């Protein structure tokens, strides 16, 4: 593919009612979208606000909307997303309040993580004491494999920004929080399963999911929150039908 000499980058500036500013950034052979944003801030406009930390796909803080799609900018090669004439459009993550420019406020995302009871509550030591012995969890057991499938989430918010149901229903917990809840429901050491299932049930929880799987499609860690949500639905279906809750 012929490389345009210059990238024409539209960058969201301001808060929710902001506007696009245009910048011209030299195109390089090897260049991530985060490199482009950094170039703009360091060379063209130091007032640009954006967020990043590790630059190598570990922290999840550089997620933005690149040409209409939520991505980690540090792991997105410009060549893979740039338009034919060198166009790039950068916005903050969708479905979240905008702080300024490319920085979205992730508070609602993490608040919902809390609401879904996304924290481990040890069964053997509810008062925070250290259990007397190690819990033995066979790695090959079905429950542990279900938990392991979703455990690598780093909370970048890409799935949340990609979810249509979040856009329709501001109360919806979203894929990441529900995925986290499913890993804990399958953790045999956890003692808060019943409360957690209550927290993720209903219209604000797993039952609103349409299984359109944008979360699974776009998760940079290749996790499958959609399957986790289906697991929660299945569990709640049988528990409700058999009067177990």
């Amino acid at each position: 593919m012929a490389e345009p000499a210059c990238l024409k980058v539209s960058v969201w500036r301001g808060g929710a009612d902001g506007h696009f500013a245009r910048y011209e950034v030299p195109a390089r052979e090897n260049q991530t979208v985060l490199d482009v944003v950094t170039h703009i801030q360091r060379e063209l406009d130091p007032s640009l606000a954006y967020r990043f930390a590790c630059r190598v796909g570990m922290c999840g803080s550089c997620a933005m909307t690149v040409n209409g799609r939520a991505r980690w900018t540090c792991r997105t090669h410009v060549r893979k997303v740039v338009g034919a004439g060198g166009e790039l459009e950068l916005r903050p993550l969708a479905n979240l309040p905008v702080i300024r420019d490319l920085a979205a406020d992730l508070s609602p995302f993490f608040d919902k993580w809390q609401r879904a009871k996304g924290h481990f509550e040890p069964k053997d030591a509810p008062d925070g004491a250290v259990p007397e012995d190690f819990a033995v969890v066979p790695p090959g057991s079905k429950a542990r494999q279900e938990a392991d499938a979703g455990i690598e989430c780093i909370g970048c918010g890409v799935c949340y920004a990609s979810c249509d149901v979040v856009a329709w229903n501001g109360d919806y917990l979203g894929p990441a929080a529900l995925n986290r809840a499913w890993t804990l429901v399958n953790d045999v050491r956890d003692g808060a399963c019943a409360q957690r299932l209550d927290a993720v049930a209903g219209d604000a929880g797993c039952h609103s999911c349409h299984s359109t799987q944008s979360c699974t499609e776009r998760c940079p860690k290749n996790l499958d929150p959609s399957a986790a949500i289906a697991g929660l639905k299945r569990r709640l279906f049988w528990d409700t039908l058999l009067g177990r809750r």
Partner: protein
Amino acid sequence: MSASDRRDTPENPQRRARAQTHLWVAQRLTAMVLGLAVLVHLATILVAVRGGLSAAEILERTRGNGAWLAFYAVFALAAGLHGAIGLRNIAAETIGLRGRGADLAWLAIGLLTAAFGIRAALGLYA
């Protein structure tokens, strides 16, 4: 709780979530019933029209047939509830119509629709 939920009388959110879960379960169960019932219904239509279709022939088959009445009563109940719960979800997502009052109204609409269907079946049975 959403802004629209807050308009309703304050209620335990856990109970609300359970009621919503029950609606969801009801929709799945009625879907299973409908999956089977629609097949039986279509097969009946195909068989019924083979010798031409007349009112007398239909009534001959349905009058006093308890099994037929039971089947269509269950079918109508499942269809009424399934449709109303589905419309409830669409209304919640598209125009933000949510809350306990709306849920009760949808349930009433579902039962009313089912009652019309059951009344029609009764008319062919009696």
